[in-house]
């Protein structure tokens, strides 16, 4: 049985006082196995974030369902952790305190262990020396590392990442993607990763879910057969170029369609 099962998922946003709603997702179906790295790519507004939020338990489906390990998803849970595009850090908390949020509310880890684990993950994401800094003192890339550490410390089975590098500049993005893979290689959690970047979605993934323009449906799922571990050099290889052409071919049509629809 797949770890994540999404069946006939539809999400419609009803605007207050309006009779028509916005159909974000339509009949979405997806199976993800444990330990898979799945990237989701599609034009703006195609419902990628909505789908992720539904899996996270932050958004109720209008119809259809999401099951994790066979169990129906009704809300957030300790088996999933989210990383946000705009980082989602609390500005009045230091790096340490923000990371602590990963385990704080669910109280799964006892007192002295917490400090130790925080230090461990600070080391893993490479933020030694910045433990007592505030978010506004950090660059975007560093803030997102805090977000990453927070997700990791929660020790989830599934990591849900909503365009985590979207707010970073292009150069930082590449470095972060590479670092993310290195961290992932050590624990192989299941990852659902939303992105706009074509190179990024191929570079990171075992499988790529290409979505259509709104309302979001799966256009095609592309299996990526590049060997791991993957260094950044792999993007210059001919196999990568073939994938790139293929994915872009699928996407271009959808992007143009969404532009014409004024999305």
């Amino acid at each position: 049985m797949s770890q994540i099962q999404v069946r006939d998922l539809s999400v419609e946003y009803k605007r207050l006082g309006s009779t028509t709603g916005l159909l974000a997702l339509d009949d979405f179906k997806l199976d993800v196995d444990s330990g898979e790295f799945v990237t989701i790519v599609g034009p703006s507004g195609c419902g990628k974030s909505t789908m992720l939020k539904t899996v996270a338990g932050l958004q109720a489906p209008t119809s259809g369902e999401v099951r994790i390990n066979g169990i129906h998803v009704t809300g957030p849970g300790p088996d999933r952790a989210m990383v946000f595009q705009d980082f989602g850090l609390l500005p009045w908390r230091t790096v340490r305190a923000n990371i602590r949020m990963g385990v704080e509310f669910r109280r799964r880890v006892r007192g002295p262990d917490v400090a130790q684990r925080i230090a461990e993950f600070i080391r893993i994401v490479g933020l030694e020396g910045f433990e007592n800094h505030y978010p506004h003192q950090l660059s975007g890339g560093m803030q997102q590392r805090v977000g990453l550490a927070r997700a990791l410390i929660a020790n989830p089975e599934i990591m849900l990442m909503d365009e985590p590098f979207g707010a970073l500049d292009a150069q930082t993005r590449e470095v972060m993607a590479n670092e993310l893979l290195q961290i992932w290689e050590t624990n192989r959690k299941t990852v659902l990763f939303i992105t706009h970047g074509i190179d990024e979605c191929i570079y990171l993934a075992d499988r790529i879910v290409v979505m259509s323009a709104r309302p979001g449906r799966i256009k095609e799922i592309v299996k990526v057969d590049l060997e791991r571990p993957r260094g950044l050099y792999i993007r210059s290889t001919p196999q990568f170029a073939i994938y790139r052409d293929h994915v872009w071919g699928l996407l271009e049509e959808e992007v143009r369609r969404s532009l014409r629809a004024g999305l």
Partner: protein
Amino acid sequence: MTAFARRHDRVMVGALAVLCVVAFWELSGRNGWVNPLFTSYPSQVLREGIELMSSPRFPEHARASFLEFAYGFVLGILVGLPLGLILGRFRRLNLIFEPLIMALYVTPRLALLPIIIVWLGIGLYSKVAVVFLGAVFPILINVLTGIKLVDPLWLRAARSYGASELDLFTKVMLPGSLPYIFLGVRLGLGRALLGVIVAEMYVSTVGIGHLIMQAGEIMRTGRLMFLAILVSLLGTALTLGLRSVEGHVIRWGRASDRG
């Protein structure tokens, strides 16, 4: 111009302008270019001010104003802060009460002076009431706004990591609205100070406001100006003090307004 002057040109020009005005003021009063009865002049202001402050009855007035201000302001915080938090947290309650609060906020409280006097007499209580009314609304409204404007991303993130409703309130909403809480207290402070002075000017036998009216009645312009400057300095000092406290507490970002 030296590099120092160029970097600090704002302060230098400002200081220069003030100095010129003060000098001109002094000369015009002393030489009778303008009748000193109308505008007084700095040395006279200072002289009459010192004379006033060293007079035996002055401490009594100062104490009266201080007490009225303190009681009213503290009361304003004690009522405004919790109410603002509750109304901000429980949206449905807010929906019911917001129109009422806005209606009361819009009513010029200084126009209520006569009826407040009718209700509470000409002594301490009416002044405290005016101060309270001045302080409570900015505090309440800003606390409310602060909670409303908490970035939903913070709430979503915390919720995704399992925060309960109580966690969300104490660990996200409260710290997140601190800049607005301080803003409200700062605004309330200004209006509270105004309230003391105005109420005492309207009807009182003690207090700084009363002294101001009295100075006007006996045409002691120097004393009048001194008192006005005194109040202004007090207000500025209190505001600066509050800002420095705010700066220490909120080390993680900027205050939400400019002035």
